């Protein structure tokens, strides 16, 4: 007789510390983008000079949070940080390559295009998140030079200009990858519904979603017993 009882199960994907780190950095990113616009867009700062001053100050404070929080998180959880790096620096599988080839057609036709199984971090995620992390490091370094180089020490004209160029280029990278990240991560894209829970709620993913997004990883977790029943099937 065929089985009919399939309980809804969840897999824990992100720890509380990972979620907190992500969420603080994400909010900081959004605030930095908004406050940065007051320096980046002349008409905005010219229209609201008093607001612009406040925004500049907040850009420095939030910028410090943006830099310090992930560093503190990595220091307090070195094993987690090592595991994080291990997930991103892995050898590409044929499925990873296939995923990238299908990515654009999939984004423009998710009903017709079916993606291959993926490990814990999709190849597309590795590229997009990697670009964001790289941009974050460069934007943090250039921001520090722009900030401290005009207050604590004098960085010099060329260094300031180079750092500003780096800061601006990374800002553009952040806009492009950040908006795509929000679109997918917040589950605005229909096939990604439910993914907001991963970072903004309990860090769990439903078994069904896990199998769809990260098939190799999901099956491994379930086989190892890292799955819990969320709701019994009636």
């Amino acid at each position: 007789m065929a089985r009919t009882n399939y309980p809804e199960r969840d897999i824990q994907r992100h720890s509380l510390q990972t979620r907190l780190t992500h969420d603080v950095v994400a909010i900081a990113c959004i605030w930095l983008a908004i406050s940065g616009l007051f320096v980046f867009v002349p008409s905005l700062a010219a229209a609201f000079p008093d607001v612009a001053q406040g925004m500049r100050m907040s850009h420095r404070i939030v910028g410090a949070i943006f830099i310090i929080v992930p560093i503190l998180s990595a220091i307090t959880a070195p094993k987690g940080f090592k595991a994080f790096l291990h997930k991103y620096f892995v050898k590409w599988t044929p499925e990873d390559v296939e995923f990238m080839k299908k990515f654009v057609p999939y984004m423009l036709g998710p009903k017709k295009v079916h993606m291959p199984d993926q490990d814990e971090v999709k190849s597309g995620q590795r590229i997009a998140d990697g670009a964001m992390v790289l941009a974050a490091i460069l934007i943090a370094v250039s921001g520090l030079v722009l900030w401290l180089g005009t207050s604590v020490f004098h960085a010099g004209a060329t260094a300031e200009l180079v750092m500003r160029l780096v800061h601006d280029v990374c800002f553009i990278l952040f806009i492009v990858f950040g908006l795509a990240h929000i679109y997918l991560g917040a589950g605005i894209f229909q096939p990604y519904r439910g993914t907001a829970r991963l970072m903004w709620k309990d860090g769990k993913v439903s078994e069904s979603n896990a199998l769809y997004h990260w098939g190799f990883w999901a099956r491994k977790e379930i086989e190892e017993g890292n799955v819990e029943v969320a709701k019994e099937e009636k």
Partner: protein
Amino acid sequence: MSEEMAIYYDASKCTACRGCQAACKVWNELPSPIDFNAGVCTGTYQNPADLDPHTRLIITFNERERENGYGVDWAFGRRSCMHCTNAGCVNVCPSGALYHDPDGTGLVIYDKDKCIGCQYCRSGCPFDVPRHTGVGVQGAGIKIDKCTGCIDRVRNGRKPACVTTCQPNALDFGPRSEMLEKAHARVDALKEKGFADASVYGETECGGCHTIMVLKYDRSMYTHVPENAEPNGMTEALGFMKPLAAVGAVGIVAGLGLSFLTGVGYKRDRLYYDEKAHDEIDVDTGEVVKHIDKEKGER
């Protein structure tokens, strides 16, 4: 006033009395340190050592031994805003605080209310002129301070304060073409007197400056007088960043918008993985949609 104007400075006539420095401070209400021995000794008569947030103009002192061994060449220079046509400070100012005088004098002026204290103008200036009031880490209330060519006086038909106080007539102010003519004539006269390295500075630098200087000696005798001065190329590259960001933002929003529209109505069946049979099952139909053949190394 629609004519391009210029401040003229003749280093060969300057006696370095620094009356111009004092006049600038008085007219523009810029304070000086009054504490005992507040000034920093630079080893010369130059004081202060460089431009600062309350000093828009300094007379520089440089000297060198003469090649013939008799005495020294003593060069006085004027260090202040050059009021460039291609002004790096204006190029990089993100708030629109710095701009060229709309009356067409060519003077580079600013609106302090719009200044957000980013200090990018200093990095954009090939002469390292702009200074800022305070350099606090917190970044509050920092404002630019630099020579405005006494635009308030110029608009009322008067010459800049520094010019009016110059007793040896080393300074002058007038139409740029006349100041250039005067400068070239003076350089010709200096060369006739044996100052072979005398030159006009500010004629072509940075698209043409609105401070024209007669240099008695070669440029190395003066402070921050670079050869063929032009704003750093990166100041123009920075100008491309805003349209690039706009294109990037519009492009990604349009792309994601299209993606969203193509995904409307998307649905998928709930899946369950039977870890013992290694089957992925469609929960609604009970159908096995995928079997993982572990013996073949599938995962």
